[in-house]
C-alpha cells in the first residue's frame, strides 16, 4: 500500500510555478528522500501534502486520504517537522509536549504520561523542566521530533530536519529517524544533503525547478553516472589539459577538471580496461601523476550531473 501519492501536482505563486507537475509514490514503511537545491519546490510539496497549502492542480493522498477533500483525516495521520524547531521557547520541554498532547485530544493524564514517555525516548528527561530557550540546537530538534510523534502517526514529514545543525546534533536526529523507521513509520525527508539520503533513504526523488528529474534508490542513481569513475591527480597544473584529453579519448566521455586540486575525473564503463589503458597512456605521454584512483561516484556528483544544464552533462 502507498502511504503518500501525488499525481501531476502543480502549484503557482503568481508568475512562478513552484511545482510543475510532480508525481510521487511512497510505499508504506519506507523512507523517501526528496533531494533538491534551495527553491527546487521541496517545501512547497511538503506544505501541500501536510494540508498547509492548496495545490493549484493535481491530486495527492496521504495515508489513503485526499489532502484537499479530507484535510482533517490527513492531519490525524501525520506528523510534521518543519525547517524551524516549531516549539514554544518560553515553556519547558515537558509543557510543550503536554500542550501538543492536549491539542491532539489526549486526556490530561494521558497527555502527561505520553510527554514523559517521549522525553525519555528522546533523551530529554533530565532537561524536561527547563525552558526550551536554554536548549541546544540538537535538543530543540529532538523535542520538535517528539512533538510530531505524540500520536505515533503512520506518516512523518521531515522538512530539512538537520539544516543548520552541527555534525553531532545531525547524528542525533538521524538516530531518532532510524528508530522510528524500525517501528514502521513512513518518512518523507527533504534535504539538501546527499549524505543524509544516502544514509537514511530507501528511495530518492531528485527535484529541481518544480520537476522530478530522477527517482530511484541511492545506488541506482549513482549507477546513472555510468558506474565507476577514474580520478587522476597530476603533478603539475600545466599537464592537466593533456590528462583530460587523454581520458576523453580513452573513455569517450567528457571529463570534469578541478584545477584547485589538479584533478581530472571521468565516468568509465569498463573499469579495469579503462584503468589499464589510462595508466599506460599517462606513462607513454610522460605525464607525471600523484594519484590514479578507481571509485564509485558520490551522490554529490550524481546530483550535480542531474541538475546541470544539458550541455554540461556527462554522457553516461
Amino acid at each position, binding site marked *: 500500500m502507498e502511504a503518500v501519492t501525488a499525481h501531476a501536482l502543480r502549484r503557482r*505563486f503568481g508568475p512562478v510555478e513552484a511545482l510543475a507537475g510532480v508525481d510521487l509514490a511512497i510505499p508504506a514503511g519506507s523512507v523517501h528522500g526528496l533531494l533538491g537545491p534551495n527553491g527546487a519546490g521541496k517545501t512547497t510539496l511538503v506544505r501541500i501534502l*501536510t*494540508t*498547509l*497549502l*492548496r495545490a493549484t492542480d493535481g491530486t495527492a493522498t496521504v495515508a489513503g486520504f485526499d489532502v484537499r477533500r479530507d484535510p*482533517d483525516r490527513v*492531519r*490525524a495521520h*501525520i506528523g*510534521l517537522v*518543519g*525547517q*524551524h*524547531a*516549531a*516549539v*514554544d*521557547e*518560553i*515553556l*519547558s520541554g515537558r*509543557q510543550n509536549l503536554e*500542550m*501538543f498532547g*492536549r*491539542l*491532539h*485530544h489526549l486526556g490530561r493524564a494521558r497527555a502527561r504520561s505520553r510527554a514523559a514517555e517521549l522525553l525519555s525516548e528522546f533523551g530529554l528527561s533530565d532537561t524536561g523542566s527547563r*525552558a526550551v530557550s536554554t536548549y541546544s540546537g540538537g535538543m530543540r530538534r529532538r523535542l520538535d521530533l517528539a*512533538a*510530531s510523534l505524540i500520536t505515533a502517526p503512520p506518516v512523518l514529514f521531515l522538512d530539512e530536519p538537520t539544516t543548520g545543525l552541527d555534525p553531532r546534533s545531525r547524528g542525533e536526529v538521524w538516530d531518532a529517524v532510524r528508530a522510528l523507521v524500525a517501528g514502521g513509520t513512513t518518512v518523507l525527508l527533504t534535504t539538501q544533503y546527499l549524505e543524509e539520503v544516502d544514509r537514511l533513504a530507501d528511495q530518492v526523488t531528485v527535484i529541481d525547478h518544480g520537476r522530478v528529474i530522477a527517482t530511484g534508490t541511492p545506488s541506482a542513481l549513482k549507477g546513472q553516472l555510468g558506474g565507476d569513475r577514474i580520478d587522476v591527480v597530476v603533478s603539475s597544473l600545466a599537464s592537466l589539459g593533456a590528462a583530460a584529453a587523454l581520458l576523453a579519448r580513452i573513455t569517450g566521455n567528457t571529463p570534469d577538471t578541478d584545477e584547485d586540486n589538479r584533478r581530472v575525473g571521468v565516468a568509465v564503463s569498463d573499469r579495469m580496461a579503462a584503468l589499464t589503458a589510462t595508466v599506460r597512456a599517462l606513462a607513454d605521454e610522460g605525464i607525471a601523476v600523484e594519484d590514479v584512483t578507481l571509485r564509485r561516484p558520490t551522490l554529490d556528483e550524481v546530483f550535480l550531473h542531474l541538475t546541470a544544464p544539458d550541455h554540461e552533462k556527462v554522457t553516461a
Partner: protein
Amino acid sequence: MNRLRWALADGATLTRRDLDHWARQPAQLVIGLLFPVMIVLMFGYLLGGGMTVPGGSGAAGYREFLIPGTLALTMVFGLEGTFQAIKTDVSRGVTDRFRSMPMASSAVVVGRSVADLLNAVVSLAVLVLAGLAIGWRWHSGLAAALAAFGLLLLLRFAMLWIGIYLGLVVRGEGALVAVQILVWPLGFLSNTFAAPSTMPGWLGTIAEWNPLSSTVGAARELFGNPGWGGDSWVAQHAILMAIVWPVALIAIFFPLSVARYRNLDR
C-alpha cells in the same frame, strides 16, 4: 456538538499556554503591568502641573482627566503584545504545526483572545488602583463605571484583531519596532493627554476622530471625570462612537484575519 466541545477545549489549552508564559516570566508580566502606571505618574506629576483641562481645576483636575485616557491608551498598547505573540508563532513555525494538527482552527485566536483580555483586565485593575491612590474617583455610580470598563475592553478586543492580522501579515525582524513606533503617535494624537480644543484646528479634528478619543471621551463621561464633551459631533457622541469604532474595526479585521490564517501562503 462534539466539534464545539473540542473547539472550546483547544481554546482553553492555548489560553493555559499563555498563563504558563506569565508564570515562567513573571518579571515581564510585572513590567508590562507597571508601564502604564509609570505613564500616569510621569504625566500626572512631571507634566501635569502645567496642564489645564476644560472643566477641571489645577493639577488634581488634570490627574482626574488623565486616568481614563491612560486606561484607554493601555488597551491600545495591548496591540503590541498580541502582535508579537502571533508573529513569534508564525516565524517559529508553531502556527504551521497547529495548522497541520487535527485541532480546531479557531483555537489559536480563541486562546489568544481570552489570554489577552485577561491580561487587559489585570492591567485595568492595576491602573485603577494606582489612580485611586493619586486621587482619581468615579463620580457617577458603579453601574456607569462598569459600563466604562466594558467599553475599554471592547476597544482592547478591536486592537486584538488588528494585532492578530498584523502578526499574520507582517514579516521581518524589525516589525515589532515598526509597530511600536506607529502605535505611539496613534496613542498621542488623541484626547488622552491634552484636549483637542487646545491643538491647531486640523490636528484637533484628527485627534477627535481617533477611535481612541471616542473611548476616552466615553470613559470620562461615564466616570464623571472632567474634560469630556466638546463642540464637534464626534465628541458629543463619544459613547455611541466608543461602540461604533471598535465594532467597525472588528468587522474589518476579524474576517481579514480568518482568511489570512486559513491560507497562510507564502
